[in-house]
């Protein structure tokens, strides 16, 4: 992607813009095994980003906030991620504290382990004045110093900046007011003021973090959310990217590069027929990299006991196959009520048939409907279990 913009100064810089690594994140809905792989993938992404930066001949990498999922992640996460960055000494990493890892008294960036194992190519943007990231390139950082700022930190960091010879890259983290206009958060980043400063030539690129989907903010083409390199939740539109930014005094080129290996997907399903169940089965089968896919299916409707039994089999199967599978009810949930064909399908007679009818009736409504549905599913399974 090439974006034309204002051309100011003859300086040139190429850097990699990323954010929201959230190293150490452990989704509760995953199994132990999947959580371990999920966490490891995020650390692996650091190495991939370093290699990409080297490959793209980037001068440096800016990580715009939420490098760590918390200031209190396991030491293993910290030392492994530092090792990944240290393994590429030619690439300088500038790490911006965000709301997940604010530069407060318990900041991980001030921890003894970070001090001991952080390599020379890693710099924490602590906001104490502009940082010379490359010749003629200045980083203006707006780190979070606590997790409840009461002002626009980016605007605070840019105050007093006048047009200069250097290229200025602003590193910030948080929500831009234009994207959440109804928000009342005083810490929201003012896009207007950023664009004014861009217009005035005081700053030249704004590298943002916090939004996990890659997003071009505003009209200047110089304000970007890089998105998270690995997805973290179902509601992210375009995660798994980093941005390679080619900035000079004439303009900026921003190119997204995909690095993510995990995938979140969710879909609402209304089930009523065997075709619906078939479609759901096909959807569950669709992810190419199943062990790194986290799927959420929200179900509603009414199925027969046989269909419910098939669904249960499907869910059991894909729970084992996928990285994560979450089945939830929506809009009243999914009811499993036997139809006439079901009743015949049970293959029972005599008193068993009468009991089956009782359960079917209970499954229609009432306080015990859900239990009765479960009982029918159990009965269905028992009638089919091998002797």
């Amino acid at each position: 992607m090439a974006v034309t913009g204002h051309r100011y100064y003859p300086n040139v810089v190429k850097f990699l813009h990323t954010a929201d690594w959230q190293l150490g994140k452990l989704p509760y809905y995953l199994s132990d095994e999947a959580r371990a792989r999920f966490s490891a993938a995020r650390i692996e992404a650091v190495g991939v980003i370093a290699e990409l930066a080297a490959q793209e001949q980037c001068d440096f990498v800016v990580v715009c906030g939420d490098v760590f999922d918390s200031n209190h992640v396991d030491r293993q996460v910290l030392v492994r991620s530092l090792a990944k960055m240290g393994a590429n000494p030619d690439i300088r990493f500038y790490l911006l504290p965000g709301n997940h890892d604010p530069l407060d008294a318990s900041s991980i960036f001030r921890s003894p382990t970070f001090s001991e194992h952080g390599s020379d190519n890693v710099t924490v943007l602590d906001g104490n004045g502009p940082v010379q990231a490359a010749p003629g390139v200045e980083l203006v950082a707006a780190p979070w110093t606590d997790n409840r700022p009461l002002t626009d930190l980016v605007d605070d960091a840019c105050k007093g900046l006048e047009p200069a010879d250097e290229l200025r890259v602003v590193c910030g983290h948080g929500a831009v007011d234009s994207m959440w206009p109804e928000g009342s958060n005083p810490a929201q980043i003012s896009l207007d003021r950023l664009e004014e400063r861009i217009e005035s030539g005081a700053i030249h690129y704004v590298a943002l973090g916090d939004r996990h989907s890659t997003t071009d903010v505003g009209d200047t083409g110089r304000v970007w959310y890089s998105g998270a390199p690995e997805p973290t939740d179902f509601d992210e539109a375009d995660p798994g990217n980093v941005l390679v930014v080619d900035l000079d005094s004439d303009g900026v080129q921003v190119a997204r590069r995909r690095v993510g290996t995990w995938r979140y997907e969710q879909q609402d399903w209304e089930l009523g027929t065997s075709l619906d169940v078939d479609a759901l089965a096909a959807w569950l089968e669709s992810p190419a990299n199943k062990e790194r896919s986290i799927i959420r299916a929200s179900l509603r409707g009414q199925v027969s006991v046989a269909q419910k039994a098939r669904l249960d089999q499907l869910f059991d199967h894909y729970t084992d196959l996928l990285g994560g599978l979450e089945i939830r009810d929506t809009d009243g949930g999914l009811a499993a009520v036997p139809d006439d064909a079901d009743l015949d399908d049970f293959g029972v007679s005599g008193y068993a048939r009468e009991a089956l009818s009782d359960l079917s009736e209970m499954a229609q409504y009432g306080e015990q409907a859900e239990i009765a549905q479960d009982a029918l599913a159990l009965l269905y399974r028992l009638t089919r279990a091998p002797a």
Partner: protein
Amino acid sequence: MRLHRVRLCNYRGVTGCEVELPARGITVIEGPNEIGKTSIPEGLDLLLTKMDSSGHRQVKSAQPVGRDVGPEVEIEMSTGEYRFTYRKRWLRRSETVLSVVSPRHEQLTGRAAHERVEAILDETLDGDLWRALRIEQGAELWLPGFDVPSLVAALDQAASGDDATDEDDDLWIRICEEHERYWTATGRPKRDRSAQQARVETARSRVLELEGQLSSIDRDTTEVGRLATEERRLAMTQTQCKQQANELSEQWNATEQVRNEVERLAAANEAAALNRDRIASEQQRRQELIDELDSRTEELSDLEIRAEQSAPALAAAIKQVEDATAALEASRADLSTAEDEQRRAHDDRDHHRNRIEVKQLSERHERVVEAEQKLQQADTVLESVKIDDGLLEQIEEAHLAVVSTEAAVASVDTTASRDLTIDINGEEIVLEAGEVQHTVVDEDVLLVVPDTAEIQVRAGTGSQSLAAQRHQAQQEFRRLCAAAGVADQAEARQATEQRKAAERQRREALETIARDLRDLTVDVLRGKIEGLTRRINRYADERPEDPPLPPDFETAKQVAAARARTVEEKRADCDNCIQATESASGALHEEQLKESRLAGRIEESRNAKQQAAASVASARSQRTDSTIASELAQAEKNARDALESLADAKAELSAADPESLQVRLQNAQNAAQRASDDLQANKQTQNDLRIRLSLRGEEGLRTRHDEANGEFLHLEREHQRTQARAEAALLLHKTFSRRRQEARQRYSAPFKQRIEQLGRIVFNPSFSVDIDQNLRIARRTLDGDTLWIDQLSAGALEQLAVLCRLACASIVSPDGGAPVIIDDALGWSDPNRLERMGAAIAAAGEDCQVIILTCTPGRYAHIGNATTIRLPIDA
């Protein structure tokens, strides 16, 4: 299942036996004991259950004793769609041979044959039914429940018309197993579910604990941020306070200068005032000297005047003392004379009193001496006279006894008409004229009057006794008189009177001695008399004659009293003179003291006047009075000037308000110090918190929390799923259990009906039974009497046992069922019942295969349609 043929060979005592059985109806196999009837069902069991290689006890017991051959059993049977011949031999040349003839031919041997038959039977035969339909010989009467699949299926079919399947029973078992996975027999959750719940709670606690630790870190972090903000504020406050303190300090310094000036002026003022006061004081002292001199001069003059005025009073006092002293001397001389006369009078009075006392004492002494003599005399009498009133009385009584005895004895009184001498019993007695001689005649008495007559008086016969009494009385009388020291009664009376007089005299003498001696002895009394006598005599010798001794004691006493009164009067005069002398001496002493003090004061005053005059002269020689007055005027002016300057300076100091300024300065300094302290504490707290955070931050608490939370949610979901499955299993089990129970109640109707149908043949039309849920006969009703099954007689119980098996077999027979095998039952039944049982067995046997083994041929003779097979004796 139907048995068509059974063959035993070398089976226990049976060398060879083969029985053909009809597929339907009743077969009675008769034979005497130990011919092998019971071996038939036993051999069937061995064949169907024990492999040919088995060395089971049952197999070994089937081997004939003493023969080296193996027991062998062969049957031909049909079950389901299968018909086959099956043979086994054990222990010797073991073999198993199966020949299936339908539905398709199969020929198998060994284990394959055994397993094939097992499979066929599993497929086609209800094992429970097979066991339930048999009554074995000698076995305890047993009334089984017929809750067996075949009967249940048949009853279900009869009840509902549906085909009840084995799958339904399998399903029920699976439902029960599923239920038992989650619930105990008493309906409580199983232990593993409780353990799962506990694991969830433990995981939840772990999450909460970690959340607490993270919250603690968040609080510390927030606190550090707050402290950092506070630190900046405190630093600003500290700066402001210091600046304010400096400004106030400068003001304070300026005020201090004013204060110093005030102090200096105050000192100058004080010095001026002191100087003024010093000169004023000097002037005052000078005036005091002058005044002192004037005062002393005037005082001396006054004293000298008073000295002149007091001289006549002193002379008068001296004269008064001299007069009083002379009067006192005269009074004392008079008193001395009066006292001498009084002493003489007293001595005279005492002299007379001594004389009286000597006289009295001498009289007492004489009375005492006389009384002692009388006492001695009385004691002498008392010692010589032994008789007393008691002894006197005894003597008088003895005398009376003598007189009495003498009166009883004859006596002779001889009265002399002249003086004569007579002889009585040879004793010569002289009598004067008129004298009477009394002679007692206690024995013969010879009275001779010389020359006149001899008179013989003869004593009577009682005289001797009387004479003895008289003699005894006389002896007693004489003994008493001798004891009293008297001759006779009269003398005794006289002696008694003499003793009484002596005693009276003695008492009087003792009283006199006691009265006159009082507390003295005779010697003391005598000594006092002698002493007083010597004093009297000496006073008489020594006393001058003049004045003359008063004639008696009373006169002497009156003289002494008069002399005493004179002395009192003289002493009173003397006391008055002493008082007057003392008063005059006191007045003189007072005047002399006044005189002395006045002289001393005059001397002192004179000295003081001289000293004051010297002081005034000395002071004036140093500074004149006028010099002092001019210096005082100048000093007073200087003091006023200094006071005015001091007031001005104080006004300036007061305007500066140093107290408020000092308070403000102190407050500003304190505030600066407090801000400094707070700042220090703030930094220390921040430092502590940062150290703690640094340490806690390394623990990876968020990761541990997320892991724990994941585990908790996983466990909770798993627990919820388990709970849901448990609830589902419970509901499923309850629903099926209820429906199954209802079905059972419906099933039992045809079974009950069939039993009652057969039972009415045996008992009577009133016969009915109650069937429990396990399809077992619970109660029997006959002729309106209902009895529990265990209340029935052995015979009735045995009959019901046969009937319920027949009923069951006849119901399940259309679907195959199994043969009813009765090994010699009905031994408890009477002939009437046997007949009726025969009819009932015959009725049931139309629908099923009944095999009866008996050694009592007549017992089953009433089964009309039975086929009888008699086992040969040599079988």
